[in-house]
Structures are given as structure tokens and as C-alpha cells.
């Protein structure tokens, strides 16, 4: 303001800090207490989720006797890998694992292909009738025929008790179509489409060499959603499959973990007890084995997963 002092001393660091402290808004006293409560609350959430998981993992690495006598808490007791040996010696489980891998890989490829094939044309403005088609697709979110009518369709299509029964009837998710369409709309500018057309690039070639490379992140998210859905589902297998050789891992899990059907007739009392102990342990190891693939990749993809969920929130 005043033009008196032209030579101003450069403020020292310390005085600057002091000035900054004076400028800072003072925190109300209650906030410190409140923050402590927040940290406590979050720690409770954290432990409530973590401890059951720890208990299962710790049990799976313990000895059969320790598990059966209930001595395991959150750390393995009498460390052993007996449970894991039992899991991988069980032909049912191994077969289920292989089946699940097949369903997940093939199912994801089919699902992603179909989703892109419908979502990309629907994202193009030059398509006549795209709104009608989109409405028809969205309507299936609100109203479905129901279990039995769908079952009858699968039956008359001749898919019952085939591997395709787990892949085709669930191939397209409406939610994933919405995500893909929104992404194509926002990530592919109209100018790009027009420029490609002027250069004489056909729609299919444009999709293959421009759109899909640009949409890789979205395709990865959608593929992941389908893969996890496929890996974790058991209901379709329960209703469409009778042949145990085709069972995915989740259905094998249900039979062993929930219905308690581990085969084998009993002989002596000591053998029965040993078998019971091993059957108990096997359950814990089986849970770990079944969840590891998903839990291993999840920390790396959680962020993208969240993005995918939120893409649908953008007005498309």
C-alpha cells in the first residue's frame, strides 16, 4: 500500500513458520477427541473383518488334532500342511478347480465379446433405433420371467447338463452393457469417428483398430467383473447340471462344506476320529484354496473396479 519501504528484508524461515501458525485456523478442542473415536471405530471395523479371515487361514495351516480340539485362534498351532495335501488329493476338488478355470476363462471371453458387440453400436449416434433397443435392454433389469420360465428355455435349447449352460444363459450383464456404452460415448470423440470415415475406414475396422485399443481399461474392468461373477457363482450349476464331472468348484465346495458329504465308509473308531479330524481341517484349507485366486488379484484391481462401478454413475 504505502510506498515508503522499498527494501524489505526477506523473512527468515522461522518467522514464516510462526506467521503460518498464526494464520492457521485453530482446531476446536473437541476435534481431537473426535478423531480418536474415529480411529477407534475404524480399528473395530478392521478387526471385525480381519479376524474371521485370520482364524480360517490360521486353522488351515494347523494340525488336524489342534483344529478339532479348538486350540487355534489367529495363529497356526502345530504348523502342518496336512489340510492342503488332503485338498489336492481329492479328485472332486481338483476336477472342480479345473472346471471353474474353464468356465471363468471361456465365460469371460464370450461375455466380453457379446457386451462390446452390443454396447459399441448402441454408443454411436448414427444408429437409428438405438434408444428403443437400449430401453428394451434396460427393461430386463426391472422385470424378469423368473426361475422356472428361464429354466424351460435352457431346457428346450438343449443346454441342460452341458458346460454351455453355465456360460450362455448368463452371458450378458445389463450393468456391464451400461458401463461399456457410457465409456464408448465419453472416450471416443465424434470427430475421431468422422475423420476415420473420411479416410475410408469401415466401422468394423475402426472398432478393431481404434476403439478397442482406446477402451482397454474399460474392457479390463468389465472382464474382471464377469470373471469374478463366474468364479463365484454356484446357483446356475445347481439347477442346470446333474453330472458331477462338470461341477464348478463352488458347487463342490457346497457339497463338502455345507452338506458334509465327504465319502468313505468308516471302519474303526480311531480311524473314524482321524478321518473326522482331517475332514474338519480340510474345510479350512478348502476355503483358503477357493478364495486365494480372487483375493490375490483383487488388491491390484480394486481401484479399477471402483472406477467401473462409478462409470455407470456418469450420465450417459
Amino acid at each position, binding site marked *: 500500500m504505502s510506498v515508503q519501504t522499498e527494501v524489505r528484508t526477506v523473512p527468515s524461515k522461522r518467522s514464516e513458520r510462526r506467521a503460518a501458525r498464526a494464520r492457521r485456523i485453530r482446531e476446536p478442542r473437541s*476435534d481431537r477427541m473426535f478423531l480418536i473415536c474415529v480411529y477407534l*471405530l475404524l480399528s473395530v471395523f478392521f478387526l471385525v473383518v480381519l479376524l474371521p479371515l485370520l482364524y480360517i487361514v490360521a486353522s488351515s495351516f494347523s494340525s488336524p488334532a489342534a483344529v478339532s480340539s*479348538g486350540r487355534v485362534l489367529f495363529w497356526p498351532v502345530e504348523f502342518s500342511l496336512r489340510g492342503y495335501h488332503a485338498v489336492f488329493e481329492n479328485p472332486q476338488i481338483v476336477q472342480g478347480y479345473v472346471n471353474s478355470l474353464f468356465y471363468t476363462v471361456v465365460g469371460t471371453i464370450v461375455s466380453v465379446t457379446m457386451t462390446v458387440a452390443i454396447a459399441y453400436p448402441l454408443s454411436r449416434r448414427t444408429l437409428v433405433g438405438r434408444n428403443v433397443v437400449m430401453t*428394451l435392454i434396460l427393461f430386463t433389469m426391472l422385470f*424378469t420371467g423368473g*426361475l422356472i420360465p428361464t429354466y424351460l428355455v435352457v431346457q428346450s435349447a438343449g443346454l441342460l447338463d452341458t458346460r454351455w449352460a453355465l456360460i450362455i444363459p448368463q452371458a450378458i450383464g445389463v450393468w456391464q452393457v451400461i458401463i461399456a456404452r457410457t465409456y464408448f460415448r465419453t472416450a471416443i470423440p465424434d470427430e475421431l469417428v468422422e475423420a476415420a470415415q473420411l479416410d475410408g475406414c469401415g466401422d468394423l475396422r475402426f472398432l478393431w483398430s481404434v476403439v478397442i485399443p482406446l477402451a482397454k481399461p474399460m474392457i479390463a474392468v468389465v472382464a474382471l467383473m464377469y470373471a469374478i461373477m463366474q468364479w463365484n457363482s454356484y446357483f446356475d450349476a445347481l*439347477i442346470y447340471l446333474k453330472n458331477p464331472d462338470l461341477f464348478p468348484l463352488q458347487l463342490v465346495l457346497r457339497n463338502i462344506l455345507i452338506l458334509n458329504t465327504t465319502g468313505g465308509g468308516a471302519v474303526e473308531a480311531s480311524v473314524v476320529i482321524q478321518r473326522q479330524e482331517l475332514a474338519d481341517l480340510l474345510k479350512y484349507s478348502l476355503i483358503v484354496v477357493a478364495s486365494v485366486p480372487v483375493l490375490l488379484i483383487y488388491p491390484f484391481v480394486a481401484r479399477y473396479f471402483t472406477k467401473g462401478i462409478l462409470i455407470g454413475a456418469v450420465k450417459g
Partner: protein
Amino acid sequence: MATLTSVRPPAGEAPRRPRKRRRERPGIVGFRRSLRRHWTLYLLMVVPLVWFVVFKYIPMSNAVLAFKSFNVTKGIWGSQWVGWQNFELFFHNPVFWNLVKNTFLLSVYTVAASFPIAIILALALNEIRNGLFKRTVQLVTYAPYFISTVVVVSMTILVLSPRLGIVNEGLGFFGVPAIDFLGNPDYFRHIYVWSDVWQTTGYSAVIYLAALSGIDPALHESARIDGATRLQRIRHVDLPGIMPTAVIILVLAVGNIMAIGFEKAFLLQNPLNLSESEIIATYVYKTGLLNADFSGATAVGLFNSVINLVLLLMVNAVAKRITGNGLWS
């Protein structure tokens, strides 16, 4: 799940920017031209569209089975019409009220428990600074969402088992005799709901966190200058900020109250807790696929779908009236 605002009726499309080119001509002429120019795109859509017709729309038409008496040899359309008979049979069935009650209570309890807890987790996470602690809590609470229903139910059974379970170990430590949680119908709903909360809270919180990060920091700044405590800021800045998101999530949850899933209830069921755990979805499966009463089960399923659709539209209308935003805004 985040929002369905992207779901918009046709014609309500606002152009994102002024169009440089003339719109495609409407009507049959425009369609012909568009078809000639973009026939490959239409071709791409054929297979998925056929899929939608076969696996979504044919089942809808198959739902007429609810008004017929299914005859295997004659097929769905050849079977005899019986009018509302299947529905009447169901309404007069002694299990009817119990099924509706179980479905409704289980669902309402789930919504009532998980909705506020997810918001609380998100608000708490939003209060602390980004760091290792925050990241770890988020990663761990999010994890159960990726575990399958079968595994979560198995874990629940193992943790609560009277012979091995850690919960009964703990009770035994205090001299309480072992409780068979799953064999007692009184516990069923609590087990179902709280294992659900355990599995989904972290995931739901993520959606609210995204909404919280979208709040204008200037609002928080000015509140701080005015001397607002953290709690006051949560009340007057954060909560109003996530209101639209919360309303949509609640509308969807309440609107799907009768559509509560088959998967978990079916797995947690056993003969001892059936009186509380038998819901409409599991009943449809048993009468339809296990007892082969296709028409009866279709009628029950249709009744449930229709009730649910009406409920969704009603809740949405109410939400729109009160807050001004619903689905299809």
C-alpha cells in the same frame, strides 16, 4: 448399483454439444440409409440381440405358464388355461403368509442394518488423512466382497459351529454352554444379516467415498473458518453432499425388498431353521425344480416379480416427491 441415472427414457437425450452435422433422418428412409452405411454395426448387434430375446424376453412370455396347467407333452402354449387357479392355490396355502413374512423381514432387516453402517464407515474413512492406515482399512474391509457366497456361508457355519467354532470357544471361556446357532430359527435372521453386513459394508462404503470426494472443498474451508467442529461439518456438509447418492441406493434397496436373493438363504437353510429361513425364492426352487410343479412355481415367482416391480416404482415416486431425485432423473 451406484446410480441408474444413466438409464434414461428415449427422446430425453440432450446433445452433449451442438451438432455440426444434420441429424440422421428419422423414419424408414433414415433407417434404410443408416443400414446401408453401417450394416456392419447392425450385424454386430444381431447375436447379442438374439440372446436378449431368447434368454430374457422368451422367459417373460413363458411366464403365462402361471395361468395354465403345465402339460409336458403339449408344451407351454399347448397347455390348458386355468386362469387364476395357481395363484389362488398359493394364497390359500398355509405357508403363504409365513413366506411373505420371512422374505419381507429378512430383507428389511438387511437394508436397515447395512445402509447406515456403510455410510458410517465411509464418513469415518473420509475424516482421516491418506496414509497407510487408511489404505489398509479400505483394502481389508473391501476384500470380503470378492469372496463367494458359498465360502462366506461356510465360514459363518465354521465360526459359529458348536463343536469347533471360535464363537462358542469364547462363550465357553466365560462358562456359557455351547449354542447351536444355525439349528435355532431365532438366530437365523441375525446370522444372515450380520454376515451380509460383514461381506458388503466395505464395498458399499466405496460408493459413498466417491460421493464424498466430489464435495466442494470450499464448503469445508468456509465451515472451518466459521469454527465448525468436525462433527458439525459432517452433519452440515458431508451428509447433505451424499444425500442424492444415498437416496438412490436406498430406493434400489427398498425397491428390491421382495427380490431378496436365493443364494444365501438357501445355503444357510437346514431343516431346523426352515420356519424362519424359507423365503419366496427358495420356495419357488423347491416347488418348481424339486417337485416339478412348474405352473405353481411360475405363479409364485410372477407374483413376487410383480409385487417387487410395483414396490420399486412406488418407492421411486415417493423419493422423487420428497427429495427431487430418483432413478431415471
